């Protein structure tokens, strides 16, 4: 079993930089969750952690274990692809439900349902987007 302390200096530098950048980006995203003042602007903050933070920290881990050659690096690939694919879906659902609730309680700073022409009753069957 080889440990992280066996890394050569150049690889250690790269891993350190990626780790610090990733955790810093995640912290900034979480700070945005704390500091921004409306729900809809807070909705943008976790994307920062989910796209930047996950990518950078997983990259650090991949480089670390690729240099050490102690195991395969596919766990990180799976983690990154999974988080990148699923976070937009979660945030989209949350945004939709927040909009629905705000309209239901008729908060005045939320846009009402946009009205337009071309009503086609056939289209409503598959409206799942």
């Amino acid at each position, binding site marked *: 079993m080889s440990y992280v302390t066996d890394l050569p200096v150049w690889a250690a530098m790269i891993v350190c930089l990626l780790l610090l950048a990733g955790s810093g980006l995640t912290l900034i995203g979480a700070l945005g969750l704390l500091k921004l003042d409306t729900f809809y602007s807070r909705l943008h903050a976790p994307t*920062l952690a989910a796209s930047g933070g996950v990518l950078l920290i997983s990259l650090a881990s991949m480089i670390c274990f690729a240099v050490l050659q102690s195991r395969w690096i596919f766990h990180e690939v*799976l983690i990154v692809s999974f988080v990148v694919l699923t976070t937009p879906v979660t945030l989209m659902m949350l945004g939709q439900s927040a909009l629905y609730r705000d309209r239901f309680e008729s908060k005045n700073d939320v846009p009402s349902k946009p009205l337009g022409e071309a009503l086609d009753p056939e289209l409503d069957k598959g409206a799942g987007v």
Partner: protein
Amino acid sequence: MRVWLPYPLLFFGLLTVWLLINQSLSVGQIILGSILSALLVWIMANLKPHKSVLRRTRLFLPLAAHIAVDVFRSNMAVMMVILRAGRRPLNSGFLTMKIELEDENALAMLACILTATPGTAWLEHDRQTKLLTLHVLDLENEQYWIDLITRRYVTPLKEIFG
């Protein structure tokens, strides 16, 4: 083939993920993974997802490059907005625009792209009026965002999905 294995690509993808998680290539794992993925493919076929016709698949590559660049740039932009949030009033706001996309899968892809780039969040799309409601964190100029989204994402997606 079509009857027994409706989605061959999905089948092999699931099998690959199973083997990667278990990190082995033994016969037992391959058999177990095949059974599981065949079951999941059968469930997927029963859900009857909408199939799209892809016209020009080679346009995916420049689109992916655009998305990578935009994710990086908007990460930086959102970082600056958050760091300055206490001192400067935020001009975030809602944006309504018309999207000329018909295909379900193209719309789903556009939704994922817009939500994955920090700074824009997809809120609602009405299939009858084709109006899309977005929330933009740094809404300086509405027409700028509408042009940007139409030029960079909607036009390529329209060409890909026909």
